[in-house]
């Protein structure tokens, strides 16, 4: 916008606000290399000791593995459940499909603290608390709405001509779906996969209600750690979390371009 140059004062304000926005995340990186016993910035000395502590901390490491396993299972199940559901809603368009779509995405409208409590109370009577199954169902409640939304949009944007041509040429509906529709939905499926994985991997509040001494996830363990003490261990674990997220985002970007996957 050459003829409407932004004034310098505006640029300084925007720069400071960006600093405010990014400071807490950026700060985690230098703190993770601290050599101090307690949380302080800037650190008095530098070392890799908190990374060593992290790797040597069996509770955090097993929580990390649980988080990964949980996210993988939840993501796979989300796709297996949401792909047929999005097909039924967008393509078969049975009566009340709009109502069903709203019902199935409604969990996202509830605050997680309320949803977490509600699930806790029901799961307690079903014996699902602090079990892997319980965590999987709890996470599915919030990953399925994302998956359904992304996949429905992706399915709705497809050109019907290819599918119609295949049908006309005699392909059965299932063959049309597997050979034509599913491959054409690839970008939506990749986006849904990444989204479900990240949502499950980062979930804290609902998980907090469903975990216990027997089973716990990395974000929940970090929450308890920050609650009880202030040391740089959480910083090195946070770097791990951020790198995980970055890896997922970069993978999606390499596969298809981030804008294509998310903004469509």
């Amino acid at each position, binding site marked *: *916008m050459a*003829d*409407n140059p*932004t004034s310098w004062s*505006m640029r300084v*304000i925007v720069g400071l*606000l*960006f600093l405010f*926005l990014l400071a*807490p*995340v950026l*700060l*985690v990186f230098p703190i993770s290399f601290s050599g101090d016993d307690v*949380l*302080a910035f800037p650190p008095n000395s530098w070392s890799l000791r908190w990374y060593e502590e992290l790797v040597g901390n069996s509770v955090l490491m097993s929580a990390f593995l649980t988080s990964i396993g949980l996210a993988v299972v939840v993501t796979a199940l989300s796709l297996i*459940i*949401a792909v*047929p559901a999005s097909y*039924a809603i*967008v393509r*078969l368009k049975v009566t009340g*499909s*709009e109502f*069903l*779509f*709203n*019902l199935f*995405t409604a*969990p996202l409208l*509830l*605050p*997680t*603290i*309320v949803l977490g*409590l*509600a699930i806790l109370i*029901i799961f307690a009577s079903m014996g699902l608390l602090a079990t892997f199954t319980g965590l999987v*169902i709890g996470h*599915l*409640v919030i990953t*399925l709405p994302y998956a359904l*939304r992304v996949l*429905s949009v992706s399915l*709705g944007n497809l050109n*019907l001509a290819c599918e119609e041509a295949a*049908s006309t040429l005699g392909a059965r509906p299932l063959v049309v779906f597997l050979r034509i529709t599913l491959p054409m939905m690839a970008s939506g499926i990749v986006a849904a996969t990444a989204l479900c994985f*990240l949502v499950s991997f*980062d979930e*804290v*509040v609902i998980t907090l*209600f469903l975990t216990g001494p027997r089973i716990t996830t990395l*974000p929940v363990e*970090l929450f308890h750690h*920050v*609650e009880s003490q202030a040391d740089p261990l*959480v*910083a090195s674990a946070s770097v791990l979390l*951020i790198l995980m*997220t970055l890896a997922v*985002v970069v993978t999606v970007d390499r596969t298809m371009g981030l804008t294509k996957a998310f903004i469509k």
Partner: protein
Amino acid sequence: MTVAALDLPIAAPKSSSRAGIATVLLLPIALVNAIGFLLPVLNLAKMSFNEALAGGGIGEAFTTANWTGLLQDQFYLELLVNSVTVSLGITIATLLASYPIALYLHRASGMWRTFLTVLVISPLMTSAVVRTYGWIALLAEQGPVANVIAAMGFQPPRMMFNTTGVVIGLTEILMPYMILSLMAGFGRLDPKIEEAAQTLGATPFKTFWRIVLPLTLPGIALGCLLCFVLAISSFITPKLMGGGRVFLLATEIYDQAIVTLNWPLAATLSMLVLIIFGLALAVYSRVLQMIDQG
């Protein structure tokens, strides 16, 4: 909320048992929805009318004692007022901190705009625990922020384990939502209108006040609604930065559910949060109407 894609013309399969196939395809998602959402939420609503017995037990008889007790207890009335006030404060702070960024992003173009937008979204992909931890480091007693304030010759205020810290932390955590909402609402803002106003002799301030601000009101309303409901139901940041000294609805729900094991009271507080959500939504649609009517 409707998705535009749902309205596309649909090729109807020949089979007459379309509804049958659809039922099979929808069964798994319906099952998860029933077990993990419908049943728990209905049960929660019911539980707010159950009696809390000593030792964490729950009476089955219908009672409005939780509700009447809540509304007569000075502590909970203060908690409610405090939660709403703090959330409104956070919403205003978030709006003030986000508006310049959103306006700048709206006017930026090309790679620079894409880069900055990614910077705005990136905190959203970072766990609230991590960002709150960053704020604890920043606002600690001998921390960088306190040092800067001291270097400027002021007495640094206490910023941790009180409402100040919670407001600062949540403002930052909610900024991406506000910026994205504002940008979504900035579509009506055409630089040509601003230029016209300036050509006709309006000062930059007058242009902003009379042209830019009114055109961006729908985005502001949306962002404020979103931030208010997220602030009043947020738990991680108030719990960690409040250090047990800041009492808000969400932290009280957690404490009642996990520490005190008074589930009926926790359920009642949860319903209260949902009622506040409903009221916020009603205010929002009223505000939108007023904006539309000018």
